[in-house]
């Protein structure tokens, strides 16, 4: 406590009688109130972490043993073998194609349903479509791929369908959000000219949101290329198949090469999308 404050309080009779001096703290600078959610979370996560570790009951000797094996595995992987560079690169190309076609279909679907899902255009239908899209989106692409394999058989086609499904559902959310952010004035102005719903969409909304649509689609493509690289693991075409197959046949240097190709693929896409982001920000 500051000395001048202490003396002031000591002179104040009410303080003297009410509280012993050492308890009379000066009014604190208004501290942010402790939020029950935050306090709860701060207690919950460490405790639950310990509980989880206890429940998972890891075999720590296995951890040590496996780590040694992991390093052996890495050592055996190098140098990467270029023996089957042709099928690997072809599979990588197929992954890219799967991602591209899947995202394109997703964008097309979302371009239509995004408008139908916007609550400022279609209040009731919008909510319904959004709900369905949220449901579809929560199921990972890989699970969709597994289900499409059961439905249409193996190969790149179930991969494309799975990516289109997931990409479409995610883009519906993004697109409809962009549409809902359009200034209400635009809507009113076009409506006042007596335009129909289609005219409102094409003349009023589309010009406002098209750049957002393009940006979201580019980011979606980035995510989908990462997804399509692993779809092959479950048999849906592309480079993932090469990796899981090589791994299962213990062809480690070949696996390493395929994994490196995936790395280069995803990394270059990340660089491209970063470049695009920066360009958009500068504008």
């Amino acid at each position: 406590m500051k000395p001048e404050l202490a003396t002031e309080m000591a002179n104040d009779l009410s303080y003297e009688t009410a509280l012993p001096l050492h308890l009379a703290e000066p009014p604190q600078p208004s501290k942010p109130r402790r939020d029950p959610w935050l306090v709860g979370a701060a207690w919950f996560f460490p405790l639950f972490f310990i509980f989880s570790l206890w429940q998972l009951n890891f075999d720590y000797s296995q951890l040590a043993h496996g780590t040694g094996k992991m390093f052996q595995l890495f050592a055996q992987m190098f140098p990467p073998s270029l023996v089957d560079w042709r099928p690997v690169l072809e599979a990588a190309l197929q992954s890219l194609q799967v991602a591209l076609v899947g995202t394109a279909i997703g964008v097309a679907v979302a371009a239509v349903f995004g408008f139908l899902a916007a609550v400022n255009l279609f209040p009731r239908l919008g909510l319904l479509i959004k709900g369905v899209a949220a449901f579809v989106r929560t199921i990972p692409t890989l699970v969709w791929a597994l289900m499409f394999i059961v439905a249409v058989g193996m190969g790149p086609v179930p991969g494309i369908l799975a990516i289109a499904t997931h990409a479409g559902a995610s883009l519906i959310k993004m697109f409809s959000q962009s549409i809902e952010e359009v200034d209400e004035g635009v809507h009113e102005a076009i409506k006042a000219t007596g335009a129909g719903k289609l005219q409102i969409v094409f003349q009023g909304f589309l010009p406002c949101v098209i750049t957002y649509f393009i940006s979201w689609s580019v980011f979606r493509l980035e995510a989908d290329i990462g997804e399509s690289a692993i779809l092959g693991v479950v048999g849906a075409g592309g480079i993932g198949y090469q990796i899981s197959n090589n791994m299962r046949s213990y062809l480690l240097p070949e696996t390493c090469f395929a994994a490196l190709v995936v790395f280069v693929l995803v990394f270059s896409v990340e660089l491209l999308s970063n470049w695009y982001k920066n360009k958009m920000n500068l504008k």
Partner: protein
Amino acid sequence: MEAQWLRIRRQKRVQTVTIVVLIAALVVWSAVQTKFHVLTVFGGLGEMGKLIVNDFLPPHPEALKGLIEPALDTIYMSVVGMVVGSLISAVLAFFAAATTTPHRIVLVLVRGFASVLRNIPGLIWALMLAFAYGIGTLVGTLAIIIYSVGSLVRAYAEILEEIDQSQLEAVKATGATFPQVLGQAVLPQFIPGFVAWSLYKLELNIRASTIVGMVGGGGLGFYIQNGLKLFHFRDVSMAIILMLVLIVVTEFFTNKIREKVI
């Protein structure tokens, strides 16, 4: 003036059309290469609809009993993955941020390491780990940790780089020691972003853990993959519903906490 404006406009239009045509051509070429036909979309969706209606519905409620353990495993793996992953990442991010790194070479090394972890998909890590550690939740957890560290190091490093330097200077000017600077100037600015990103990661981990489960990481993913192989579709749809519930519940709670922190 008018003519010039028109010319620029025409150029712009030509540019747009070229890009659109190029992209369309790429898509069509890819579709041809992958033997994909527009009709397949409808055919595939039709088959999917039939599959869902005939084989997946109604979900098997009896499967729930067997599902509780995998679902709990998924939660445990995600939480352990998040906590361990974010702690490792916080330390590494310190070396990967331009403002706090001891040396430029360290920065490049740590960032490169994180980028390798990040850009090789989690599923592929899980495949390799399953090879070394055998099948089980240990593999799933480790795969989640690896996958988290890759993206969190970058995110945390960006937060550290955006820290207001004048606050650091101000604390330093009072003669604070290094730990004091860290505690009074760096941490308060780092914590909100740290918490927000870690929670976001928890959400992603729940999704990721169902995926790494498919190659032997345990949890719900393993169950789904197995059920599909054995044609126990109604059990699988129950598992998917449970997964959805998990994701929605985590999203709800993490959103609540995130709102309070930021």
